[in-house]
């Protein structure tokens, strides 16, 4: 019987924009428009999308780092939304985060030991010796030396820094790790090291990942399930193999087709995107993707497609023409 580690229901987050003129109505950035998904224990859940689709906002809201407008985030069955910062502190040991920038996410004035031990503050009551032991243990598990504790971040390369960041996230033995683009700032050869490490850690400790990335190949490599986001909403989600083999939303298809392939002399045949991104500051009836969609019809302008199951095995998509898309992919 598997347990649900993270359950997000109808999460909404709109940021107010500074007013343009005194009389204008207030404007918002619609960063999250009702996002729902859940992650089972020990699984990796990937969230893919282009810049401005709301994936980082989602990470910050799941981590309870900013206030949520409405909706619910349950981590290990406990509601996180609405709790005060202090009320939440003891619960924080169960969910930790890894950030994108291996240079910006480590305080240059702290030693590695201090950086890695920081989340233990949520636990409180640990002895010095216990702390040191856990730091040493977690550093070895990410492939660093226990003697690295007294070094400073600037003595490490980007990939090693990201290992330090992962060690910091692991130290409280969390159930959930939210990783926001953890490898996108790294070189390919180093990126592979970190991806493999993330996989190994999952095998060893059974951690659950919520993995955010713009790189589809990385998500395919690491994740069991994937959700594709577009302008603050999930447009498709499902098992990785289903979604990548039979994309049911045109946007997913276009994303997949846009990835350049490192193979000898093939000119790929692909669906291309037209138009440019509709602003995140607009809210309209109908499908948000219709302006760029090669297969949009009048129906798409009139009726907002709901996220619905399009295939067995939990393959969901928010498109009126998902069945056609799947048919096309299998043909």
């Amino acid at each position: 019987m598997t347990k649900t580690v993270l359950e997000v229901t109808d999460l909404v987050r709109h940021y107010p924009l500074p007013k343009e003129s005194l009389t204008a109505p207030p404007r918002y950035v619609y960063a999250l428009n009702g996002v729902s998904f859940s992650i089972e224990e020990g699984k990796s859940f990937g969230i893919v999308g282009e810049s401005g689709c709301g994936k980082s906002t989602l990470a910050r809201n799941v981590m309870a780092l900013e206030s949520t407008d409405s909706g619910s985030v349950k981590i290990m069955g406990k509601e996180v939304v609405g709790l005060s910062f202090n009320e939440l502190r003891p619960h924080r040991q169960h969910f930790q985060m890894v950030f994108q920038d291996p240079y910006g996410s480590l305080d240059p004035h702290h030693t590695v030991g201090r950086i890695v031990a920081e989340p233990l503050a949520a636990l409180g009551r640990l002895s010095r010796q216990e702390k040191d032991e856990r730091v040493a243990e977690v550093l070895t598990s990410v492939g660093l030396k226990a003697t690295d504790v007294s070094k400073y971040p600037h003595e490490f390369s980007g990939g090693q820094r990201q290992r330090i960041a992962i060690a910091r996230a692991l130290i409280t033995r969390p159930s959930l790790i939210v990783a926001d683009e953890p490898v996108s700032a790294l070189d390919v050869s180093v990126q592979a090291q970190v991806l493999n490490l993330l996989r190994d850690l999952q095998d060893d400790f059974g951690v659950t990942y919520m993995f955010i990335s713009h790189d589809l190949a990385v998500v395919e490599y690491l994740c069991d399930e994937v959700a594709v986001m577009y302008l603050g909403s999930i447009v498709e989600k499902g098992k990785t193999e289903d979604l990548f083999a039979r994309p049911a939303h045109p946007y997913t298809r276009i994303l997949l087709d846009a990835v350049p392939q490192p193979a000898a002399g093939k000119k790929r045949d692909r669906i291309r995107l037209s138009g440019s991104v509709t602003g995140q500051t607009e809210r309209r009836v109908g499908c948000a993707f219709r302006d760029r969609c090669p297969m949009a019809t009048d129906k798409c302008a009139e009726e907002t497609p709901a996220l619905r199951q399009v295939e067995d095995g939990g393959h969901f998509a928010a498109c009126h023409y998902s069945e056609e898309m799947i048919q096309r992919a299998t043909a």
Partner: protein
Amino acid sequence: MSVFFAKRFLTLLATLVGASVVIFTVMEILPGDPALVILGVDASEDAIQALTKELGLDKSAVERYFGWIFGLLQGELGNSYAYKVPVWELVEGALKITVPLAIMSMILSVTLALVIGLYAAANHNKTSDITLMGFSQLGISVPNFWLAVLLIIFFAVNLRWLPPGGFPGWEAGFWACFKALLLPAIALATVQGAILARITRSSVLEVYREDYVRTARAKGLSRRATLWLHVLRNAMIPVLTVMGLQFANLLAGTVVIENVFHLPGLGSTVLKAINNRDTIVVENVVLMLAGMVVVTNFVVDLLYAVIDPRLKAHDL
């Protein structure tokens, strides 16, 4: 109206109102009774009370504050306690010295700063750059009133080129007045100019490292053309900020410098008035000085919008 403009304008008004309250309060706390100072310690109790009443000092502070402000709104500054003449008469002559002096030194310092700053930046790390920056460091360190004294000793006492102090009045002709203000203006401008020159240099150097400067060079623009066409305008943004802040210091400097050169400007007026406990003069003059600073900064804010189109889009 745009939010940008409205916001800045409201800040300007709020600052002025706040300034008037602070100035008035300070003058209220100021020990020393104007009537007592005017009549001297030997004056009789009755005479002091009579004068207090005559000056309107028996009214409550709130009443006097609003009296002052409403007077100001109607262009009435009131009468000096000490000299029994309208404050405007005292201030008018002083303004005719301080304002030209401030403008002269501002022009001088900005010219100095831009020439030195740009030249140094263009010759980055060469001997001329290092020498100029050494001198500017020295310029920042020199107290302006001491520089004023040195200038007097050298140009007025030894060389006898320029008058050592005093002001002939504008009736004496532009040239005479210009000569009287030249040394004080140089004394004021040197320090300000040295600071601005350093800011200009580092700002230009910083902009030189921007990606769009590389783009401009990749287009085939020469170093010099890049400096004038692409670097300068962007580099002016921080320089402008400092320029606005400097104006307050410049005005403050005039208070001291006027003292050195015996110029009957606003600075001398305010010092004299404080000594006389001529509170109404102090209030008006200090508010005027604060007003000049606030208006200058308002103009600087508007200039931003002219230089930087990003501001216009967001706020204008």
